[in-house]
Each structure stands twice: as structure tokens, then as C-alpha cells.
């Protein structure tokens, strides 16, 4: 059974801090790993990672994949209150287009 595990499950930081969110996976015939941000409503796509060691970056957010150790991290630098959200990590199941999601990390950024 495919498994995606995120840690920590929740995190409280102050504005300006840098945070690292973790995602480990056990997926048969791994193809990719995806990160989503969920505020009050629909999860929105952040990154899709397929190659080990190549960092994807968007503004203050970046993510990297380690296919040897089977994990990914999502970094957020200089956090802002608008970064408060649930961050979801997911991987496609073998031979399917459905995603297996982790339970998410709830990030709270306080002023």
C-alpha cells in the first residue's frame, strides 16, 4: 500500500522565520511528488518534483526531492501571515492517476 507521511503535523512560527516541512513516501513505481497549499478553500498547486536533487523555486518557496532517501522538503523563507495554511504532499499511485495524500502540515505564522 502506498504511503505518504508528512511532518510535523502542525507548526507555529513568527513572521520572518524560515520553516522546513517534510514529506516521506513509499510508493511503488514512483513517478512524481506534488506539493499543494490549502487555505480556507481549494488546495492550490505549488510544485511537482520528478528528478532527484533539482530544486524547484517560486518566490520564497522552494522544494527538493531525494529519491534515494524517499523524501521531499518544502522550505519557506521570511514567512508571512499569508503563508498560514495546510501544506499537502502527494504522490501518484502505481498504474493510476489517483494521488495518495499525506495528512498535511498546518502552518500558523503569527505576527
Amino acid at each position, binding site marked *: 500500500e502506498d504511503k505518504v507521511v508528512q511532518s510535523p503535523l502542525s507548526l507555529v512560527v513568527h513572521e520572518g522565520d524560515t520553516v522546513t516541512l517534510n514529506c516521506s513516501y513509499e510508493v511503488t513505481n514512483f*513517478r*512524481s511528488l*506534488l506539493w*499543494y497549499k490549502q487555505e480556507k*478553500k*481549494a*488546495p*492550490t*498547486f505549488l510544485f*511537482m518534483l520528478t528528478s532527484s536533487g533539482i530544486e524547484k523555486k517560486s518566490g520564497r518557496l522552494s522544494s527538493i526531492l531525494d529519491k534515494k532517501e524517499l523524501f521531499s522538503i518544502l522550505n519557506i523563507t521570511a514567512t508571512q501571515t499569508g503563508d498560514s495554511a495546510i501544506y*499537502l504532499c*502527494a504522490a*501518484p499511485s502505481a498504474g493510476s*492517476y*489517483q*494521488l495518495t*495524500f*499525506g*495528512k*498535511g502540515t498546518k502552518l500558523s505564522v503569527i505576527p
Partner: protein
Amino acid sequence: DVKVTQSSRYLVKRTGEKVFLECVQDMDHENMFWYRQDPGLGLRLIYFSYDVKMKEKGDIPEGYSVSREKKERFSLILESASTNQTSMYLCASSLWSATNEKLFFGSGTQLSVL
């Protein structure tokens, strides 16, 4: 921009009622999905569909059925709602592609069964 629209943002139903949750996407995506999201349990797949009239069970299909009569519309049906089906329901769609697993989500329907 891809748009996935769920018909209701909030819904309150009584135990035993038949409930329909509707989802429409405007990007001609082949794949459509229904997830439920509960605190501490994350997103769990209920059903998905990869074509009109085709459906596959996800991880937690019990108590639910689905309908996909048109490509753009995927309905989730609770035949006889129960209190343990109180949850946030998220619809999503994606292209049929081996290199693109990106899901586009609707805004969710918060269902309360009393």
C-alpha cells in the same frame, strides 16, 4: 484558468436523506475525483472517473456512489446520509497524461449531517 466548480459551499442534511454533490469542470479533463477531508485523516479518495460512465472505487467508497453522464460533470451521491459522513468534500480534475498528475480542486462542500 482551469475552473472546478462545486455546487454548494455549505450543506446541512438530515440522517437518511439522499444527498447529491455536484462538480463541474471547464477544461475538458478526462479524470475527475471525489475526496473527503477530515481533521487528522487528511484527504481520502472516495471515487474517481477516467471517462464518461466509467468509475473506480477509491479508498473509502462505502456509503457513496457516483455518476458521470457528461465529461464535465461528476456527481457524488450519498444514498442515505449518516452522521459519520459529515465532512469537507473536495472535487478535483486532471488531464489524462502519464506525465501530468496535477490535480485542480474545487472550493469544497462542507456537509453537515444531523
